[in-house]
C-alpha cells in the first residue's frame, strides 16, 4: 500500500496551489525561451553621434564622502537585491555593454577616440600624447591664483606668462619623482589608449618665479580659510624636496579648454546632457577601463576623479568626458608609496574582511608579504602579485562591477596594443633620474601587460580583425588575426584553429581543421553548399553564412570558446560582406 512520505507533504501542498503552478509554468517557459539559440544575426544598433549641440549644463560637484558611502554600502545592497542580476549571473548571461558595434568595438565619441589599438601611434605621437604646448614657462613669472583645496596632495593653481592656467602638484617629501612621473606616464598611456586626458607636464622651476595674486584663498594648518600670504607659500614649499640647484620638480596639469562641469559618475547618465544616452555602467569604454587601471595599478578611479567639460569643437557645443588625476597609479599613492592592499582590496572591503577572518590567517596572499620598496621614485609596483582578473580600486565602481569578459577583452586589446618600444618611450617622459628605476618600471609594465593579455585572451576567443580578403590564388575568404599571436603571447606554431559552417541556420560542416592558417576559403564553402543543397544560386541577400571558429593552444586539451562570424553573399556579384561577429562571453 502506498504511504505518503511525511516530508513531501508541504511540497505537495505547494504544488497543488494553482498560484504557485502558474509561476512555475511562467518561469519554465521563460527559461526555455531563454535557452533557445537564435541563429540569425541581428545587426547592432547604430547609436547617434553624441556631440550634438546642447545648452550649457550646470556644474555639479560630486561629494566623495557620500559617493564612497553610496558605493560601499547602498550600491552593494542594491546589487544584492537585484534579482535580475543574480539570475543573469546564475545563467552565465551577464548584461553586455550597450554601445558596441557589430565587431564589439566602440565608435569615436565624446568619451573615447580609437587610437593606438586601431592604428599604432608613432613614437613621436606616443611621446607627445595630448600635449599641444611646452607647458608653463619656468623662466617667466608664475602667478599663484588659488591654493589647491581638494585632494590629498599639496599644490596650487597658477597662470603663467602666456596666460595659460595650470594646477601645480608635487611629489611627497623623500619620494622625488614618485607622483609626478606616474601622472605623466599614465597620461600618455590613457591618451594613446583613446581616453580624453589633460595635458600634463613635468616642470622644474625656481620658487623665486612665484608671485601671489590678490586674495588667494587658502586653508591653513588650523583649518581656517583665509587669504594666503607669502609666508604660507614658503611653508608649503618647505614640504617639498628641492634639487641641489634649488629648483623644484613639479607636475603642471593644464586646465582643459572649456567650462568644467564637475566629475561624472560611473552609473546612470548626466540628466542635463541630452547626448549622454548610454548608462555609464553599460558603456564599454568605461567597463573596459577596468583592465587598464588594473594594469597600471591606478586604483583611484572614483567618481569625481574625472571631469566633464562643456566644450565647443567641430562646430558643436557638447560635454566632453576626461579622465584626470593619475598620481595614485603605478606604485604611487600621491602622498606616499602605495599601501600593500592597494589594487588587491577595497579600502573598506567587507567581503575580503570576512574571507580573511574565516581563513584563520592560513591564506597568506602574495601582496600581504612585506616587501622592500626597491625604488622610492616608483613605490610599490611589481608583477609578481598582479592578478588581472582580481584587481580592486579604492572602492567599488559600478562600471567595473558590470564588466564582462567581452569588455575586459576589449580593454586587454588596448593594453596589448602597447609595444615594448612604445612603453620605453612613454616611460622616458617620466624623466626618472635613476636609469635602474626606469628599467625596472619598463620590465614590470611589460610583464603586467603580458599577464593581462594572457589572462583575458584566455577568457574569450581572441580571434579578431575579421575581413573578407583574397588568398594568393584569388579566392575570397574570411581572414582573421589571432590577438594572442599578434601580442606574442603564443606563437603561430602553438595555435590551431577549427571551424564549423552553418547556412540559413542549418549546420553544413563541423570541425574543419585549419591548422594554424588564419583564412577560411569561402569559395570552397560555396561549392560544398551547392552540392549539398543541390542549388545553383542558393543565395539571397538575406541568407546568412555563419562560421564558428575555435582556437586550441599547444599543450592545452580544451578548445577555446567560440566566435561566430556572419556573412552574406551578394547574388548579383557573388561578393561576400561581413555582417558582424558574435563572441561567446
Amino acid at each position, binding site marked *: 500500500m502506498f504511504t505518503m512520505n511525511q516530508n513531501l507533504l508541504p511540497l505537495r501542498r505547494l504544488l497543488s496551489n*494553482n498560484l504557485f503552478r502558474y509561476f512555475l509554468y511562467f518561469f519554465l517557459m521563460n527559461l526555455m525561451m*531563454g535557452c533557445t539559440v537564435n541563429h540569425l544575426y541581428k545587426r547592432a544598433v547604430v547609436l547617434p553621434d553624441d556631440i550634438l549641440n546642447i545648452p550649457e549644463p550646470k556644474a555639479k560637484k560630486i561629494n566623495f564622502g*557620500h559617493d564612497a558611502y553610496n558605493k560601499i554600502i*547602498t550600491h552593494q545592497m542594491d546589487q544584492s537585491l537585484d534579482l535580475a542580476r543574480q539570475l543573469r549571473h546564475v545563467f552565465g548571461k551577464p548584461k553586455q555593454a550597450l554601445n558596441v558595434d557589430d565587431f564589439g568595438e566602440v565608435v569615436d565619441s565624446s568619451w573615447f577616440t580609437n587610437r593606438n589599438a586601431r592604428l599604432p601611434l608613432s613614437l613621436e605621437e606616443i611621446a607627445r600624447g595630448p600635449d599641444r604646448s611646452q607647458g608653463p614657462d619656468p623662466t617667466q613669472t608664475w602667478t599663484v591664483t588659488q591654493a589647491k*583645496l581638494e585632494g590629498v596632495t599639496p599644490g596650487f593653481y597658477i597662470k603663467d606668462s602666456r596666460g595659460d592656467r595650470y594646477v601645480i602638484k608635487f611629489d611627497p617629501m623623500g619620494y622625488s619623482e614618485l607622483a609626478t612621473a606616474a601622472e605623466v606616464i599614465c597620461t600618455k598611456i590613457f591618451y594613446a589608449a583613446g581616453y580624453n586626458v589633460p595635458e600634463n607636464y613635468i616642470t622644474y622651476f625656481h620658487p623665486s618665479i612665484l608671485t601671489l595674486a590678490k586674495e588667494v584663498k587658502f586653508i591653513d594648518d588650523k583649518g581656517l580659510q583665509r587669504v594666503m600670504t607669502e609666508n604660507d607659500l614658503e611653508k608649503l614649499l618647505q614640504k617639498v624636496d628641492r634639487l641641489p640647484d634649488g629648483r623644484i620638480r613639479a607636475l603642471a596639469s593644464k586646465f582643459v579648454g572649456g567650462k568644467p562641469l564637475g566629475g561624472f559618475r560611473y552609473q*546612470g547618465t548626466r540628466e542635463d546632457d541630452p547626448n549622454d544616452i548610454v548608462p555609464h555602467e553599460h558603456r564599454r569604454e568605461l567597463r573596459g577601463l577596468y583592465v587598464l587601471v588594473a594594469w597600471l595599478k591606478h586604483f583611484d578611479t572614483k567618481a569625481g576623479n574625472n571631469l566633464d567639460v562643456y566644450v565647443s569643437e567641430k562646430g558643436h557645443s557638447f560635454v566632453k568626458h576626461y579622465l584626470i588625476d593619475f598620481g595614485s597609479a603605478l606604485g604611487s599613492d600621491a602622498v606616499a608609496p602605495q*599601501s600593500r592592499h592597494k589594487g588587491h582590496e577595497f*579600502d573598506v572591503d567587507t567581503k575580503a574582511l570576512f574571507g580573511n577572518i574565516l581563513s584563520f*590567517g592560513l591564506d597568506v596572499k602574495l601582496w600581504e608579504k612585506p616587501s622592500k620598496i626597491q625604488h622610492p621614485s616608483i613605490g610599490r609596483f611589481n608583477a609578481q602579485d598582479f592578478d588581472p582578473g582580481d584587481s580592486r580600486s579604492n572602492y567599488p565602481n559600478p562600471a567595473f562591477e558590470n564588466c564582462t569578459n567581452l569588455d575586459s577583452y576589449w580593454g586587454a586589446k588596448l593594453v596589448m596594443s602597447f609595444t615594448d618600444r612604445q612603453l620605453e618611450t612613454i616611460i622616458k617622459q617620466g624623466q626618472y633620474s635613476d636609469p635602474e628605476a626606469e628599467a625596472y618600471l619598463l620590465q614590470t609594465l611589460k610583464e603586467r601587460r603580458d599577464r593581462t593579455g594572457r589572462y583575458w585572451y584566455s577568457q574569450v576567443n581572441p580571434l579578431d580583425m575579421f575581413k573578407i580578403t583574397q588568398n594568393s590564388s584569388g579566392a575570397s575568404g574570411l581572414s582573421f588575426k589571432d590577438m594572442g599571436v599578434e601580442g606574442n603571447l603564443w606563437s603561430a606554431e602553438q595555435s590551431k584553429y577549427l571551424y564549423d559552417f552553418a547556412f540559413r541556420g542549418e549546420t553544413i560542416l563541423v570541425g574543419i581543421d585549419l591548422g594554424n592558417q588564419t583564412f577560411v576559403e569561402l569559395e570552397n564553402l560555396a561549392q560544398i553548399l551547392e552540392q549539398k543543397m543541390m542549388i545553383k544560386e542558393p543565395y539571397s541577400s538575406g541568407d546568412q553564412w555563419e562560421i564558428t571558429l575555435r582556437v586550441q593552444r599547444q599543450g592545452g586539451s580544451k578548445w577555446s570558446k567560440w566566435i561566430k562570424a556572419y556573412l552574406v553573399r551578394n547574388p548579383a556579384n557573388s561578393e561576400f560582406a561581413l555582417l558582424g561577429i558574435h563572441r561567446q562571453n
Partner: protein
Amino acid sequence: MSPKNKKTTRLLSPLLIFLCLFILSLQPALGSSAQEPDEKEEKGDKKSSETEYPEKLKSEETWETLINIPGKILFIPFWLMDKALAPILSWVGVAPQVTSKIARLLVSADGKRGLLPSTSDRTGFGLKFFQKDLITPGSHLDLTVRAGISWRQFCRLRLRDFRLGGPLVTEFYAHYMYLPTERFYGIGNDSQKENESNFSHLQIMAEAFLGTYLGQSTKSGLVFGLARNIISEGKRSGVISTTDLRPDVKEKIPGLDEKINYLLVQFNLVHDSRNRLGNPSAGWEIDLQGGLYRGTGNAEYGFWKASADFRKYQHLFYDRVLVLRIAAEITEPKEDLQIPFYYLSELGRRETIRGFRRGRFRDEDLILSSLEYRYPVMIRDNFELGVDALLFVDAGQVASDIFRQFSMKEFHVGFGGGLRIYSKNGRIFQILAGKSSDGLRFYIGLYD
C-alpha cells in the same frame, strides 16, 4: 482545494495570465545575447537634428524591472538612509575647514594632545583626554571619565613616565570608581553560578610610583598608595544583594558592608620589550608586583599580595602571532588579619578568563594561562591602521593554597575569538566573544 485557495486562485489567475502573456510578448533576453533591434532602432534611428535629441537608453530591460520589484521594495530603507546621510556627508566634504577644526579639537596636529571616546564593558562609555610630553619629554597624562548603566561611574587620572632626572621616574595614579552591580558568587574554585548576588563597590584610590629605569624596557620601583573601599547594598534588580545573604554566609565574606581605608606599599617591576605597541609580534610583557595592604583605623584587615604576569609574543609567519601568557597571584593574610573579599584573587574578567563574569571565582591564590592566536584581516599601511582577528583559550584556577591545591582538572576554561583594531600607538578598539561553561559573553573596549 480549500476555499481560501480557490478564492486566491480566482483573484490572481487572470492577472497572472495577463502578466505571462505580456512578458512573453517582450521576448525576454535571458538567453539571447542579440540585441533587440526593433525597440532600440526606433530610439537610435532618430536622426539628430539640432533640437531633437535621442532617447536615453534604459539600464534595465522591462522584464528586469518587473522581476526586481520585490528587491526594490526591500531596498527602500537603504535608499532612505542614503538620502538622509547625503546632506551630512556632503557638508563634511564641502566644509573641510569646519571638519578639520573639529578634528583639531579632538587631536592636535602634532598628536600630543587629544580628546577621544573611551568605552569599557565594566565602566561604560565616556571620554579620554590625553597630553603627551607634559612638563618632561616622554611623559604622558590622561584623564578618563566614563559612565554606564545602573549609574556606574569611573574617573581616572594617570601621569606616567614623568622623569625626575637621569633614570629616576615617577608616576601618579588616582581613580574614583562606583560600580553598583558587582557580582559575587562565593569564595572558592567551585563557586556556583546559581549563588549569584550583587553588591555596590565604591573605590577611591591614589598611588604614587617612584622608581628607576633599568635599561630601555624595564623599570622598577616602589608604589605607595591609599585606597578607600565602601561595600554596600547591590543595585541590580532581580538579584539578591550580597549584604542580604544569610548571616552565616555573610560572616564568611570579610569586608562586606564596610568602609575601609587601606595603605599600600608595593614593589613593582615592569618590563616591556614589545617590538610594536599596536600589534606586537615579538617581545615580552612582564609585570611583577609584591606588597602589603594594611587597613587603617581598623586592625582587622591586612594582607600580602604578590603577582607575576608573563606574556610572550611569538611571531609565527607574516604577522601571525602567538601570545602566550602565564600569570599567578598569591594573597596571604598578615598574621591574624583578614583579606577583604574584593581584594582576593579573582578569575572571570577580560583580563583573566574570557567567558566568565567578573568576580566569578574568588580565592586567595590564582593561576592562569592563556594562549592567543592573532592574525591580520585588514592591512592598511597608508592609514597606519590594522585589524587583527584573534582566537584564544584561557584557563585558570583559584584556590586558598595554590601550591597544594593545584590541579589542571580544576581549571576553568574559556575560549573564543574577536577582532581588534590598532594603530601604531596601541590598540584602539576590540570586540571579543568568550564562551565558557557559564555561557557566552561579549567584551568591548575603545581606547581603554
